[in-house]
């Protein structure tokens, strides 16, 4: 059993799925679903179609360099069966997946960093410039009225709860 990659979107093709097109020079194009096959027939370039892995890799959307990708590799020579190796591999798979997911999370967070920083700077600048036009929440203006209000609120809440108990 071999898991192939789709020529167009680079997703994994499990056995029994998809279609393969054989060109006359014996190059095989495998497609995971009719969507990818149709896009190929329309002569679209996967590097220019936004939802493909090729586009996302090319434009720095996805993580491209990671040690965990080394494990997922095409091997043309079959591995000799060894019980211990299989056992260890099975143990390692969830660990590697976890590590990869953590790296991915970090990658996404790093990608969001500059945007978030910029937004914060923009907001603070706006606040500085036209502070007088904004209506600030009361707790920024004075402490006393807000404190009184909270006291009242607590009382009401307590009464309500007591009532509820009575009813039950």
């Amino acid at each position, binding site marked *: 059993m071999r898991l192939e*990659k789709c*020529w167009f979107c*680079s997703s994994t*093709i499990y*056995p*029994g*799925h*998809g*279609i*393969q*097109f*054989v*060109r*006359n*020079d*014996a*190059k*095989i194009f495998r497609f995971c679903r009719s969507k990818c096959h149709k896009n190929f*027939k329309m*002569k679209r*370039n996967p*590097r220019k179609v936004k939802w493909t*892995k*090729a586009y996302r*890799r*090319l434009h720095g959307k996805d993580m*491209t*360099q*990671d040690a965990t*990708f*080394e494990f*997922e*590799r*095409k091997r043309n020579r079959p591995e000799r069966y060894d019980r211990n190796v299989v056992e260890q591999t099975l143990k390692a798979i969830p660990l590697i997946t976890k590590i990869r997911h953590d790296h991915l999370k970090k990658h996404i967070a790093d990608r969001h960093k500059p945007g978030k920083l910029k937004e914060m700077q923009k907001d603070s600048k706006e606040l500085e410039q036209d502070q007088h036009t904004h209506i600030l929440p009361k707790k920024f203006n004075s402490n006393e009225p807000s404190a009184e209000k909270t006291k009242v609120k607590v009382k009401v809440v307590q009464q309500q709860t007591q009532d509820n108990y009575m009813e039950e």
Partner: protein
Amino acid sequence: MAALLRSRCSSVGRTLMGSAGNNLFGAVNSSVESATRPSHCDAISQQIRTFIQMRTNLKVVDNSGAKRVMCIQSLRGKKGARLGDMIIGSVKEAQPRGKVKKGDVVYGVVVRAAMKKGRSDGSEVQFDDNAIVLVNNKGELIGTRVFGPVPHELRRKKHLKILALAEHIV
């Protein structure tokens, strides 16, 4: 050679990390792809993707001397022949001094079909064109060479000689 390099590049690009070197490979890959692609796409648009039935023209991909054969009878099924089936055809174009000549009625095995065919694992396979290899009525090859890719399904149809002579088995 180019095809080999390309396939290797693409596999690397799919599975491994796309370092700077990989991007470089990728660029080469895409340029080669764009250069070679139009030819086969034109072939698809010209090729009708249906059963091989009476009056279907097929390319002959062996060295028997025939160049084009027209199907006059499918030896299997009501609708027509598919990948790996036997047909009877008449030679429409032939090279001079070949083993067969124009007007001969010949048997042949469909080794490539533009219509998609289900495989044993549930996936499907489709080729660029409709192609045939000429055999006699006992299933023995007339030519001595087979060009282009052929599907491994021929093994089930007991055409082992074709598989042995083929350049690529898909």
